[in-house]
C-alpha cells in the first residue's frame, strides 16, 4: 500500500506540474506582466528543477499540506476538511442503499433463478449498471421534487433550517447530538434522492455479483448435505451458502466504492451538494490544480484504504486466507 501511495504522489505530481500548459497564466490571467509571472513562479517554486519540486511536494503532502487553493486562496487541506463530510454522508448513504438493496436482490435472484423475480432483478441491474448518473439524478429531481413535491430539492438542508453546531460535519450526527429533530428530518429527506441516484450503479453491480456467487455455491454438495440434514431453507441459504458467496461479493463491494467516489462528482453537481466532488469540478474548471490534486489524492487514499480493509476482511470470512 505504501508503494501504491508513493506512485499516487508521483502520478498526481506529474499531472499537476508537468502536463499543464501553464498554471501561471491560469492563476494570473493573460495580461500578467513579466515580473509578476516571475515572482509567482518563484513563490510557488515553479522555477526550481522538477525533481526538487517533487521532493518539496511529497514533503508537504506528508505533513498534510496540499498547498494553497488558487481559487479560494485558502489552504486546500482546510477546504477539503470543510467539503469532505458532505461527501462522506452522501457516499455512506449510497453505500448503505447499495448493500441493503443489492445483496438481498442478488440472493433472491439466485434462489428464484429463471423465475419472474430473477428476470426483473437482472434487467434492473443491467439498466442500473448502464445508467448515466447525472441523467438519473436529473430525472429523479424532476419527478419527485419539481413535479410531485414529495421530497426536497438540491442542497443538504431546507433553506429555513438552521444548521446544527458543527462537530463531525455530518448533519445527521450533528443534529442528533444537538437533539434537533427538525434539522435531522430535513437532512435525512435531503439525502434520499442523491443517495438513491449515487447508489443505483453499485446496487446493480453488487446484486449481479451476489447472484452469480450464490449460484456457484448453491449447487455444491455441502449445501445438499445441509438440506438433507433437514435444516430449514432459510438457514441453509443464510448460514451456509451466503457466507461463502460473500467472498467474491466483497471484492465487488470494495471496487464499487471507487464508483461511488466517481459518481459523487456527477451527483453532487446535479444536486448542488456542497461536497468534494463539486469542489473538484469547480476547482478544475478554474484550473486550480492544488485543489484538484488534493481531491484526487484524498479519493485515492480513501479508496486504497477501503480495499485494504476488505482484503483484511477476507481472512475473517475465509479461514484459508491468512495474512502474515
Amino acid at each position, binding site marked *: 500500500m505504501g*508503494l*501504491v*501511495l508513493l*506512485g*499516487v504522489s*508521483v*502520478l*498526481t505530481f506529474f*499531472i*499537476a506540474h508537468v*502536463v*499543464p*500548459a501553464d498554471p501561471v497564466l491560469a492563476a494570473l490571467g493573460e495580461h500578467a506582466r513579466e515580473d509578476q509571472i516571475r515572482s509567482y513562479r518563484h513563490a510557488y517554486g515553479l522555477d526550481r528543477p522538477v525533481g526538487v519540486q517533487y521532493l518539496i511536494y511529497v514533503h508537504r503532502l506528508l505533513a498534510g499540506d496540499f498547498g494553497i487553493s488558487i481559487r479560494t486562496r485558502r489552504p486546500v487541506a482546510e477546504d477539503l476538511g470543510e467539503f469532505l463530510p458532505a461527501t462522506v454522508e452522501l457516499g455512506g448513504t449510497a453505500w448503505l442503499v447499495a448493500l441493503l438493496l443489492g445483496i438481498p436482490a442478488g440472493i433472491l435472484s439466485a434462489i428464484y433463478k429463471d423465475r419472474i423475480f430473477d428476470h426483473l432483478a437482472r434487467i434492473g441491474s*443491467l*439498466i442500473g*449498471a*448502464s*445508467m*448515466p*448518473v*447525472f*441523467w*438519473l439524478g*436529473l*430525472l429523479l*429531481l*424532476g419527478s419527485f421534487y*419539481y*413535479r410531485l413535491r414529495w421530497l426536497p430539492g438540491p442542497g443538504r438542508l431546507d433553506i429555513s433550517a438552521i444548521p446544527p453546531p458543527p462537530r463531525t460535519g455530518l448533519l445527521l450526527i450533528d443534529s442528533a447530538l444537538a437533539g434537533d429533530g427538525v434539522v435531522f428530518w430535513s437532512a435525512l429527506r435531503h439525502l434520499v434522492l442523491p443517495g438513491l441516484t449515487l447508489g443505483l450503479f453499485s446496487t446493480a453491480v453488487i446484486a449481479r455479483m451476489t447472484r*452469480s456467487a450464490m*449460484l*456457484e455455491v448453491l449447487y455444491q454438495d455441502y449445501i445438499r448435505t445441509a438440506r438433507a440434514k433437514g435444516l430449514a431453507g432459510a438457514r441453509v441459504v443464510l448460514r451456509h451458502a451466503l457466507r461463502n458467496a460473500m467472498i467474491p461479493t466483497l471484492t465487488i463491494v470494495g471496487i464499487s466504492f*471507487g*464508483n*461511488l*467516489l*466517481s*459518481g459523487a*462528482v*456527477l451527483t453532487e*453537481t*446535479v444536486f448542488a451538494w456542497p461536497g468534494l466532488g463539486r469542489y*473538484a*469540478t469547480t476547482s*478544475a*474548471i478554474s*484550473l486550480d*490544480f492544488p485543489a*484538484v*490534486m488534493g*481531491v*484526487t489524492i484524498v*479519493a*485515492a487514499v480513501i*479508496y*486504497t484504504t477501503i480495499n485494504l480493509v476488505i482484503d483484511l476482511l477476507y481472512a475473517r470470512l475465509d479461514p484459508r486466507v491468512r495474512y502474515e
Partner: protein
Amino acid sequence: MSKLAPPRRRRWPYRLRLLRRNPLVTLGAVIVLLYSLAALAAPLLAPHPPLTQYLEERLEPPSAQFPLGLDQLGRDIFSRLLFGARLSLMIGLVVVVIAGVLGTVVGMAAGFAGGRVDHALMRVTDIFFAFPSLILAMAIAAALGPSLTNAMIAIAMVTWPVYARLSRAQTLVLVRREFLEAARAVGAGDLRILTRHVLPNALSPLVVQASFNMGDAILIAAGLSFIGFGAHPPTPEWGVMVSEGRDYITTQWWVPTFPGLAILMAVTGFNLLGDGIRDMLDPRLRRAG
C-alpha cells in the same frame, strides 16, 4: 506440429445458436448495430442539420416534423442525437484502440518477461487502479485542457490497466504451453512468438473487455462533457445535450430526457454484447451467468 497445436475452437454456427438462445444478447447486438448504422448514416438519416436553429419553434414538443422535439435553441433533437452517435462511438473506438493496445502491450510484456519487469509494470497498473476512474480522468482532462480529444486521452489513461491485467494473466498461462515451446524450438523469436502465438490465443477476454470498455468510455465521456471537461456546446454530444437541457426537465422534459436515454441504451447495448461474447467463449459461465 499439429499434435502440439492448441485445440481448435468450435466453429461459429454453434456459437450463433447460443446467440439465438439468449434473447438479451441478441438485443445487445441489435442495439449496437442500430447505433453503428445511425453513426455511419447520420447525414442521410437526419431530417435536419444538427446545428440549424429554428428559433420560432424552439422548445416545441415532438411532432411529425421534429420526431423528438426541439431544444432551447430550436435545434432538432433527433438529428442531434444521430450526429451524437457518431461522436460517442468514435470516442469509444478511439479509447478502446489506445487503451487496448497500450494495456495489451504492457500486460504481454509483463507476463512474458516475468521477474522484475513484470513486478515493476504491475505496480504501475496498481497505481492507476488506486484512483476512482472519473476523478483521475477529470484531473488529466483538466491538466491537458478541456476538449473532446483530451477527454478521450484521459479516458484511455484510466481504462488501459484492465487490459494489462487480463493480457498478463493470459500470457502467463500461455507461455507454459507446449505449442510455444515447439514454436521456439523451430526458431521463432520473442516478437514472433508474442504476436503470432500468444496474442491470438489471448484475444478472447480482451475482446470481451473491449465491448465493456466501449460502454464505459461512452459513459465517462458523457459524464466529463456534462461537467464541462469534454465536448463543448454547440457540439451535439449527448452529455452536453443533457447538461444544456437540464433546466427544462419539468417544463419541456424531452430536451434533457432523450439524450440521456440515448446514452443509457448505447451503454446497455455494449454491456449486453460483452456479456454475450463472454458467455459464448466460456461455456462454463453460461450456467452461472
